[in-house]
């Protein structure tokens, strides 16, 4: 049982690390010769990937998947709230600039 759990935690860590490394590839595709370029796709993807990572940390590392339904729903609602605030701020800010 213990080995199964540890293997699961290892897989979770590998997924989180891979998602972190994906950022390097993502930024390289948009930046040109060291000059950083504005990109809505990269910005939205970066925020979405970060929120997916946060949800994985909640569910797996913080053991929310074993928690009562109210805590699962509350943490999920929190991730949605953060997503709405971050993406909303970015798009509203872009629209008024």
């Amino acid at each position, binding site marked *: 049982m213990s080995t199964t759990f540890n293997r699961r935690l290892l897989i979770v860590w590998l997924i989180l690390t891979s998602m972190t490394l994906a950022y*390097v590839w993502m930024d390289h595709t948009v930046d040109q010769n060291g000059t950083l370029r504005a990109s809505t796709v*990269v910005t939205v993807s970066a925020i979405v990937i970060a929120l997916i990572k946060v949800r994985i940390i909640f569910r797996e590392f913080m053991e929310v998947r074993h928690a009562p339904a109210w805590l699962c729903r509350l943490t999920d609602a929190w991730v949605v709230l953060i997503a709405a605030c971050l993406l909303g701020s970015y798009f509203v800010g872009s629209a008024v600039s």
Partner: protein
Amino acid sequence: MTNLAGSRPQLEEKPTKFVPGQPDMWMFVLFESLLFTGYFSVYLVSRTQNEELYLRSQAALDLRIGVFNTIALLLSSWAIARCVKASREGAYRPALINASLTILFGVVFLVSKVLEWVKEIHMGNTFTSNEFFQHYFFLTSIHCIHVLIGFIVLGVVVYQLWSPVRRSQQLVETCATYWHTVDFLWVLIFALLYVVR
């Protein structure tokens, strides 16, 4: 002080659903993440108003250092998650080793962050340089204060696990919840400061 075996049932006897740690810590986690989200929103709006300045300033940050920092904190989170499981199964020696590894990776993160600050200051990028670096230094330093508090919290875990008379699984889980919060806040800060374009 609560004893592990006495206070909470072992894994096999445990009901399927349980709240990890004390519910109060979860309220703190949600409150903290909401506070940070408020600041992140201000940062993103400011960013859209002066995109060129932010992109130019961001070029002075090394994405690889940010990735290294993130992996160090993810390693520490992984270690504390293993510590919680080991302690729940009564394997206190592995639990202590994992708690120590968590502290080690936390220290790696902190040292790397301080070296990055020194590098930026030598490059002439300080708190007063421009708006981007104000956000950068404010967010990273407020996060580092959380890391420093985390070391005290991890010290409590080690202290708890050290002696059989002190072992409280609920307290270990509560402390782990705090440390994971430090980790996921950094995941968001890293994406916003280093990655967004």
